[in-house]
């Protein structure tokens, strides 16, 4: 660095300086980065115990340099409950995909939220099982083709895609619930703001924090990264509206916040 240069931007130290295993255009790297930035900005790195889940993000512990425990598929909210009850002064979060959280782990996420566990959940919804090779997820959109619904998801046969943020917001123990997206810079910045709130309701003892992050999986969607970002705006957001569904710090109602058209 030259003497007259000033460092105005750097990578958070808590994010490992190594290439990820994610596909080009995948949003996991962006989500990891946002979490890492917040852990540092909020002074939480040394207080954090991270609970990793099963799916593409199973290797999260290779990229975020904090204490971590690996949970069985879908059980991260239960494991996080055990961690938080054993160590109430630690900062505890899970990072889960849609198959993990909304299918096999539906019971665990619902009850963890309902108990109002003081933990935070980063829910990456990309409407598909990524790591196992593109099978139908509980959030797969109607008509979306996957390897296990090759003709496209059909409501009569497979039911409707599950809207987790709305469900979690309806539970008594959740203190902050939002849905955001990572398809453009504006939404990425918004995601970071929402994640900060979800972390803050834990550190202030208010309750359970939850952010559903709409993300791209170009590989399993079989499209380019650019097209994948467009799909988020054109197909996902209309069905999964962005917004804040619950905010115990601001008393925002789901009705007022849930129908946003922003971010398209």
């Amino acid at each position, binding site marked *: 660095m030259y003497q007259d240069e000033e460092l105005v931007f750097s990578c958070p130290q808590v994010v490992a300086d190594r290439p990820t295993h994610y596909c080009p255009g995948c949003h996991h790297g962006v989500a990891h980065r946002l979490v890492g930035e917040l852990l540092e900005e909020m002074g939480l790195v040394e207080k954090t115990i991270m609970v990793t889940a099963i799916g593409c993000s199973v290797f999260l*512990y290779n990229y975020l340099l904090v204490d971590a*425990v690996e949970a069985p598929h879908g059980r991260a909210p239960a494991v996080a409950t055990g961690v938080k009850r054993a160590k109430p002064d630690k900062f505890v979060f899970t990072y889960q995909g849609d198959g993990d959280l909304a299918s096999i782990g539906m*019971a665990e996420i619902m009850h963890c939220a309902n108990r109002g566990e003081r933990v935070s959940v980063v829910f990456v919804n990309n409407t598909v099982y990524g790591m196992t090779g593109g099978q139908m997820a509980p959030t797969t959109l109607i008509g979306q083709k996957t390897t296990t619904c090759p003709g496209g998801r059909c409501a009569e046969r497979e039911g409707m895609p599950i809207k987790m943020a709305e469900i979690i917001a309806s539970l008594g123990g959740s203190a902050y619930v939002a849905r955001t997206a990572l398809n453009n810079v504006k939404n990425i910045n918004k995601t970071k703001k929402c994640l900060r709130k979800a972390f803050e309701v834990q550190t202030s003892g208010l309750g359970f924090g939850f952010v559903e992050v709409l993300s791209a999986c170009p590989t399993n969607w079989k499209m380019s990264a650019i097209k994948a970002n467009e799909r988020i705006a054109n197909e996902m957001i209309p069905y999964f509206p962005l917004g804040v569904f619950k905010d115990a710090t601001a008393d925002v109602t789901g009705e007022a916040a849930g129908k946003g058209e922003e971010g398209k």
Partner: protein
Amino acid sequence: MASGDKLFLKGNEAIARGALAAGCQCFFGYPITPQNDIPEYLSKALPDRGGAFVQAESEVAAANMLLGATACGVRAMTSSSSPGISLKQEAISYMAGSELPAIIVNMNRGGPGLGDIGPSQGDYFQSTRGGGHGDYRLLVLAPATCQEAYDLTRESFDLAFQYRNPVMILGDAILGQMKEPVLTAPDRPADPAEARDWSLDGAVGRGPRLLKSLFLQDGALADQNRMLQAKYEAMRAEVRWECFETEDAELVVCAYGTIARIAKSAIRKLRKKGLKVGLFRPITLYPFPSEALAKLVKPGRKFLTVEQNLGQMVEDVRLSLCGLATSEFFSIYPGNLPVPDDFDEPIARALGL
């Protein structure tokens, strides 16, 4: 609780109190008969002591909460009965793979399926062969009295942390529901440093720690399994058993847990009739006291294994006898309440009378 008190306790409550005496700080459970006295007792006692009690949404969740708490190096426990233990197997496998010192209590009830709420030893294989997927072992302790239930639970936490391995307390519906006098022992809170070298408490002044059971790199899983195997071998040092009237016995009855104490009643009665019968009772089911049993082999001495299942421990008994002797087997079918009279006929038959 002052130590040295003589209390009249249900087996379930003895286990709960034994856990408290060992410094157990967290309990995660889900209701199922016949073990409900354990969560009921701890739901008050743990919060009173500043600990945590959670009634989970399922046994699956309870066992995974246990995984989370033990990853923090905290003394924690779950309890259930057979159908619930089946549900906990997922997390038990992960805890064995991640080397977490969890205590799991199984008050065995009748099966298969929903079975009944009476006593059974049908979960012997499940307990001693791992239970979930993959190769692993639990240290399995099988108390036969309420006192032993208290003492072994109190010790189980030390064993779990010593070996960084899940420990199972295997009782049954009779042990859980019966009451006996129990002499309490002094509380011995956990050594605050016992998990210092591996537990998660935030990476302060050190690199991050990771507790996991996924090993994808070439050779990594093999190394992990080699290390686990060495640990399971080392656990053999913990082998425990009881011999009763075996010195001059022509027939040695092999039984564990409640069935062993009921066998003892039958053996006392038959001894008074002049029959030379003794009892070999494994207290650790894994590691199985093979060497101690093999030492009982004598020319002409016979063995009879009695279990309340269709024949499970008898396989370990026969392996232990190394072909130098064999063991007859008598089954008390789960669903029947075992009583001392049940033993008369099989013992007479095994003696050739």
